[in-house]
């Protein structure tokens, strides 16, 4: 039995502790906003926050998450009101959209640690997240916009 706290809710799951957190979130808890892209920590589609860090859930044994705060895209904000989500909508970033949960979860760590990121910071934070549709230019733009929204206290 493993106890997990996801998006401020407690869960108990009966699972092999080696199972990657990704599959526990998606299959056992039904939180399918976190995506599977590579299973090797190469693409970032599965990024969630583990005690605030942008952890790749596809390679994270669920045992590591026990006793930690897990946040997934579903728990990032109440009503898509996170500055990044607002900015993503304003810039119409997603194409197929499949990578976007991971992109946003990575960008959230960047914005928390650097409220006014320069392009080089964006490159340093976001190069672990592949977008096969190539929305990179818009991701960059949206992060800058989100920084402004956040700076004006515009997040929900």
């Amino acid at each position: 039995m493993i106890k997990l706290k996801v998006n401020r809710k407690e869960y108990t799951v009966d699972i092999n502790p080696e199972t990657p957190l990704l599959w526990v979130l998606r299959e056992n808890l039904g939180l399918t906003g976190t995506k599977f892209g590579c299973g090797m920590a190469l693409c970032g589609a599965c990024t969630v926050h583990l005690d605030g860090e942008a952890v790749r859930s596809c390679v994270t044994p669920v045992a590591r998450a026990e006793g930690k705060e897990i946040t997934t895209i579903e728990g990032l904000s109440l009503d898509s009101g996170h500055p990044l989500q607002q900015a993503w909508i304003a810039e119409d970033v997603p194409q197929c959209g499949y990578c976007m949960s991971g992109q946003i979860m990575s960008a959230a760590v960047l914005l928390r640690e650097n409220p006014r990121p320069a392009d080089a910071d964006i490159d340093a934070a976001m190069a672990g997240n592949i977008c096969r549709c190539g929305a990179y230019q818009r991701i960059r733009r949206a992060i800058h916009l989100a920084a402004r929204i956040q700076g004006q206290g515009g997040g929900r």
Partner: protein
Amino acid sequence: MEKTDVSSQVLTQLAVKIMLVIAALCLGALAPSTWAADDRDDAGARAAFLKAYPVFMHPRCLNCHPAGDAPLQGDDSLPHAQNVQRGPEGRGRYALKCANCHQAANLPGENLPPGNPKWHMPPPGMRMVFQGKSPGDLCKQLKDPAQNGGMTLEELIDHVSHDKLVLWGWDPGNGRSKPPSHVEFVDHLRTWVKKGAACPE
């Protein structure tokens, strides 16, 4: 890794370093000539260091001691994909911190992220570069407390003998090549120290 753990660890390390630096300043510089060695043998020390040198240059060891600010990867020591960077504490930056992918243990399977509870690279203030260093330069750097985190040579030996992350180099997981023998590596370094720790030219 718990965040609180990390920061308290960093603070302790820092305190230890400061104390060591102060001690070093009081005792005078730790130049080889002042190193009291019973069996001082500069030629022997140099020879021993040269034997240990290939281990430092092995990708398992060198990859996290790059000349630049990106860790390296693979046996060809190419810059780590994903634009990974050293970051302010040697633990990566933003959404690309080492522990975001590297777990406490190697993951089974080819090319999966290797792991270790201490996975990190030298912080920017103490870069401990291996890549591109000649034996002489590497040796001087290793001995210099200002560059080695304030370690004495005994502590250095202890570090390469027991540090979990150093030892990872000989247990790198699926399919990765290993450096030459760890036992011999430590022996060479011990000999080097015992013979006065002279550095190759």
